[in-house]
């Protein structure tokens, strides 16, 4: 078999452009086949990385610093796998969702293809300027998806998101410019030793700029302001893709930089993401508890769950379990949040009501969907045996070993608040519905893809060891 790596980048770009070529609204089948193939490629790549260790690939054959390199280790291959695995059921879901919707789905397929292609390119790139270009693809595709076919509120949310993402990538670009000026290269491999010693002040400025830019794109508190309207207002498959995957792409890049080339420079700052993450957990959960609209509740829950990703930053240098916790949180949140948005979409489709109060009666009408929502909720709360439980357990374990009591407290408090907003919806669902409603059938495909994703997020807690083994070599590099 040929090398799966280049195909993981080329394939989505190719089917995205062909989907556009076919015309508005076309390309759903093409997209499904494309992503299914990408799943197989990602698993093949994972097997290769597990067998032979991290791979380096010189695009164009030049190699850094003249050319652009790809670098694929366990962490990168995990993100590649996660993205394809979450995207596949979501695209099937979207096919059913956009089946009858006119305007919103016209350019969904090509935009989704470029979004996935951009993320895949981001995960494998080892060149800072190339990473900037991939960030722009992902950012602009995400904004286009949010805005597609929307009313005034949705367009306003998209514009706000666009300014946030452009500000973020602008800061990243200036950081790249400073690093190139100071070090004469943008290759991450070559920058490693250059930044390990005494770095000039411009490099510190670059590190701050790039980190803040990525905080902004990841919607870490207090840069989360753009996320709830954008994720809460977009079409449901778009919200799911964005909440599950897109914010993880910029987070992955941040993690990669902080673990690798920025590590010697950011050590004294490692507590900052944890403080902001704690604030995100408390504030985001509280807003979710208070939210009137169902999708806004789920979007605020994303703001909170992003916080957990950053809690482990002060522990990364000393506790090996901290990285495992981050990875489990990334994967389990991606699956659970995709499931929760998908389930929410079914509920809204059937009840025609997007408020939390409108969920009444769903327990009888949509037991399968409600079960999916509840399973996803189990992961977000961090109850055993879910993936979320494993993530939070590892995090508490690592925090206790460091004596970081406040972090433990935040994790526990966040879990309680998550239970509050999840049970708010569940309790409402078991109330009796007003009897006058017309019955709308739930599309089977939409219900089952939500359930599949939710079940996967719980099953992760049982079969998490394989993932831990996959990323084990990362710490060594």
């Amino acid at each position, binding site marked *: 078999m040929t090398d799966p790596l280049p195909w993981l980048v080329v394939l989505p770009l190719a089917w995205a452009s062909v989907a556009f070529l076919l015309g508005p609204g076309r390309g759903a089948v093409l997209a499904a086949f494309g992503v299914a193939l990408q799943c197989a490629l990602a698993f093949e790549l994972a097997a290769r990385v597990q067998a032979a260790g991290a791979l380096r690939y010189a695009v164009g054959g030049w190699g850094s610093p003249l050319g652009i390199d790809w670098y694929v280790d366990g962490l990168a291959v995990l993100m590649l796998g996660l993205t394809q695995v979450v995207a596949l059921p979501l695209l099937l879901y979207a096919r059913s969702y956009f089946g009858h919707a006119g305007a919103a789905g016209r350019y969904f397929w090509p935009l989704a293809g470029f979004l996935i292609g951009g993320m895949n390119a981001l995960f494998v790139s080892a060149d800072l*300027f190339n990473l900037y*270009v991939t960030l*722009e693809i992902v950012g*602009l595709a995400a*904004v*286009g998806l949010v*805005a597609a076919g929307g009313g*005034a509120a949705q*367009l*306003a949310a*998209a*514009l706000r998101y*666009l*300014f946030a993402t*452009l*500000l973020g990538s*602008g*800061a990243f*670009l*200036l950081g*790249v*410019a*400073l690093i*190139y*000026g*100071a070090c*004469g290269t943008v290759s991450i491999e070559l920058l490693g030793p250059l930044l390990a010693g005494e770095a000039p002040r411009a490099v510190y400025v670059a590190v701050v700029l790039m980190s803040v830019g990525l905080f902004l794109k990841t919607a870490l508190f207090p840069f989360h302001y753009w996320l709830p309207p954008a994720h809460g207002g977009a079409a449901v498959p778009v919200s799911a893709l964005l909440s599950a995957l897109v914010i993880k792409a910029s987070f992955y890049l941040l993690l990669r930089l902080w673990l690798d080339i920025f590590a010697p420079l950011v050590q004294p700052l490692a507590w900052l993401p944890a403080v902001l993450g704690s604030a995100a957990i408390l504030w985001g959960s509280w807003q979710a508890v208070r939210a009137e609209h169902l999708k806004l509740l789920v979007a605020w829950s994303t703001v909170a769950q992003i916080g957990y990703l950053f809690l482990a930053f002060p522990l990364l240098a000393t506790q090996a379990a901290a990285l495992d916790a981050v990875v489990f949180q990334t994967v389990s949140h991606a699956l659970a949040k995709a499931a929760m948005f998908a389930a929410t979409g079914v509920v809204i489709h059937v009840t025609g009501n997007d408020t939390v109060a409108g969920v009444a009666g769903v327990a009888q009408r949509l037991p399968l969907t409600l079960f999916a929502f509840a399973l996803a909720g189990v992961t977000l709360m961090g109850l055993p045996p879910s993936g979320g439980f494993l993530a939070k357990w590892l995090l508490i374990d690592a925090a206790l070993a460091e004596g970081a009591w406040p972090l433990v407290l935040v994790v526990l408090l966040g879990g309680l608040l998550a239970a509050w907003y999840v049970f708010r919806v569940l309790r409402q669902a078991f109330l009796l519905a007003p009897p006058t409603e017309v019955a709308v059938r739930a599309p089977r495909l939409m219900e089952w893809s939500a359930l599949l994703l939710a079940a996967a997020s719980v099953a992760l807690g049982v079969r998490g060891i394989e993932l831990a083994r996959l990323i084990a070599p990362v710490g060594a590099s």
Partner: protein
Amino acid sequence: MSTGMLFALVGALLFTMGAAGVALPGAPLRRIVAFNVMGSGALLVLVGLAQRGGGVDPVPQAMVLTGIVVAVAATALALALARRLGAPGARAASGDDD
């Protein structure tokens, strides 16, 4: 001071001004213009700093060509959104000159 360093400093100031313009609330059109000033500043730093010792570096120059195209793409998307939105800011601003 070399030409490169001089324009790198100008770029730093342009970036700061533009970023402040994007971050401040205002009419979408103004923020879009500010974004373009910010982007130009970052690109000026990229080439200026690389060429601060005199000489020519084609690598950042090629990167800047990419950056200019990315900027016009983002500008067009932002304008499309602002126009569909009916740009409430433009309404307020055009009141004093018509």
